[in-house]
């Protein structure tokens, strides 16, 4: 099945759940879904299209919203599911029940962006090092860091 045929099939099958399907390069499909449809689309993709392998989940800070991209791949093509959640209320449902291997990436999102993943089987709060101050999410664009002063041993400093 070529990519174009696949897009047609996906459009017919998933219908309203997928807002748009972009095809910028061969073997790269970008599907845009609403946050509430994420689980349904993932389950459908897994059961019908054999999309079982999740490469990773990328988070992007777009200012007002957080964009989350789920990179799936099959031997035929790559599916990139894109969804956006508001920065003020960054809740998203966990896909770990559907794809067990997703747990690490979702925890990473929680840690780095301060998103809240609902329904994560092991939702222990993720803090970077043990002594990381709470409420700091390094990958948010507005997060800035003050570099600690370095001491030159034996020097004038």
């Amino acid at each position, binding site marked *: 099945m070529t990519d174009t045929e696949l897009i047609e099939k996906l459009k017919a099958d998933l219908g309203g759940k997928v807002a748009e399907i972009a095809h910028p390069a061969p073997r790269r499909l970008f599907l845009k879904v609403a946050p509430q449809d994420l689980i349904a689309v993932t389950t459908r993709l897994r059961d019908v299209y054999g999309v079982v392998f999740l490469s990773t989940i990328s988070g992007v800070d777009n200012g007002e919203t957080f964009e989350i991209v789920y990179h799936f791949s099959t031997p035929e093509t790559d599916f990139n599911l894109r969804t956006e959640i508001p920065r003020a209320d960054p809740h998203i449902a966990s896909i770990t029940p559907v794809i067990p291997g997703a747990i690490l990436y979702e925890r990473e999102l929680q840690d780095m962006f301060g998103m809240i993943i609902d329904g994560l089987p092991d939702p222990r709060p993720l803090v*970077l*090092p*043990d*002594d*990381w101050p709470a409420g700091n999410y*390094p990958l948010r664009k507005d997060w800035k*860091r003050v*570099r*600690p002063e*370095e*001491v030159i*041993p034996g020097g004038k400093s």
Partner: protein
Amino acid sequence: MLNKLARWSRIRSPWVLHLNSGACNACDIEILAALTPRFDVERFGILLKATPRHADVIIASGPVTRQMRDRIIRIYEQVPDPKFVIAVGACALSGCVYRGAYNIMGGIDQVIPVNMYVPGCPARPDAIIDGVVKLLGKL
């Protein structure tokens, strides 16, 4: 006389502990490569030891990450005196490309006293051996 003997033995049998504090593996692999047939540090009596208690020289590689800082200090304290530290690689010296990243505290010398610096990204095994031998020559 006894002191001389002790110094001689110290120079002749430095047992090293390899400590990685967040390095990119390159220096670590080069340190390991120094054990292998081409470089073979056992010629100088250098043995890689597993526990800090048996070691004399800490070979540290990598920039200090925030999480490792306390552990490095703890491991340093576990090594019985007299002890020496060799910082291997640009990261252990200053932080290299990671200098300024939010989780990096800088070079090893920000945390524990360092006796010898071996630059390079990564330092070649020959350079590492040279570093150890030069350190011992200073004694």
